């Protein structure tokens, strides 16, 4: 099982995502929580994240179009997005959210617009990469995942 090419592919994909900073240790914690009673835990949590984040991003887009900008409302949205990014280990998205928060706190519309573009870019990149990763994972037999992808 552990020697199957798909299995190695999944492990490599995950290592790459961690090495490149798209994901951090928290994602590994999610995988540790996947077991026989919650065999699709990682996929469930990732799905919940992208459902919430799509809503929050749409909310931020709308709020950025309204003038004058309601920075408090914007901060509320980004706080939630940052929180759930942190919960799944989405490191790059989380960092861009922090940058956005700084601009929000300074009341800088220009800064907010620029950094939100980066938030959306990182979010889209992560979604694609996680979709690819989960696709491979689904094809791998359930049991070896925990043992395999644990970093040494």
């Amino acid at each position, binding site marked *: 099982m552990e020697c199957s090419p798909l299995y190695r592919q999944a492990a490599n994909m995950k290592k790459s995502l961690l090495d490149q900073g798209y994901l951090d240790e928290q994602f590994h914690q999610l995988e540790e929580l996947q077991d026989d009673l*919650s065999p699709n835990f990682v996929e*469930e949590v990732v799905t919940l*994240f992208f459902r919430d984040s799509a809503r929050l991003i749409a909310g931020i887009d709308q709020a950025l179009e309204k003038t004058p900008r309601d920075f408090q409302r914007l901060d509320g949205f980004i706080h939630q997005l940052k*929180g759930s990014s*942190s*919960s*799944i280990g989405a490191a790059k998205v989380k960092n861009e959210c922090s940058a956005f928060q700084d601009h929000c706190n300074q009341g800088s519309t220009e800064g907010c617009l620029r950094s939100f573009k980066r938030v959306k870019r990182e979010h889209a990149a992560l979604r694609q990469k996680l979709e690819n990763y989960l696709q491979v994972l689904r094809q791998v037999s359930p049991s070896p995942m925990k043992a395999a992808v644990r970093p040494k």
Partner: protein
Amino acid sequence: MSAIRGCKGEAAAELHVLAVDDSSVDRRLIERLLRASSYRVTTVDSGKRALELLGLGKENNTSSKGPKVNMIITDYCMPGMTGYDLLKVVKESSALREIPVVIVSSENEGAEDFLLKPLRPADVSRLRSRIGGSTS
């Protein structure tokens, strides 16, 4: 039954935890984490819903007896009623004030832990684990 312990094998005393968080991701996480310790978990997405479940009606009077809850764990920063607001309502209610409440905060707020006064020895040993340089 005054202390909350993960007691596997004590079927008659399954402990019920009410988890409150506006984030669906965090609700799923906490549900999974608490399940690992054999607690029965109910999750709700707001302080308002938590109070409804606990049997407190809109006027904060006990309108109906809610299901027995052995602990409330709540996010601090939520829209509408914060975790702290929820804490206050629970502690002001004669029916609910005995329920231990744990408040969870993201690093956004900067807090390491929230503890209730008066502090007890168990709290102090928790503090020990928070002091820098500790391994646990």
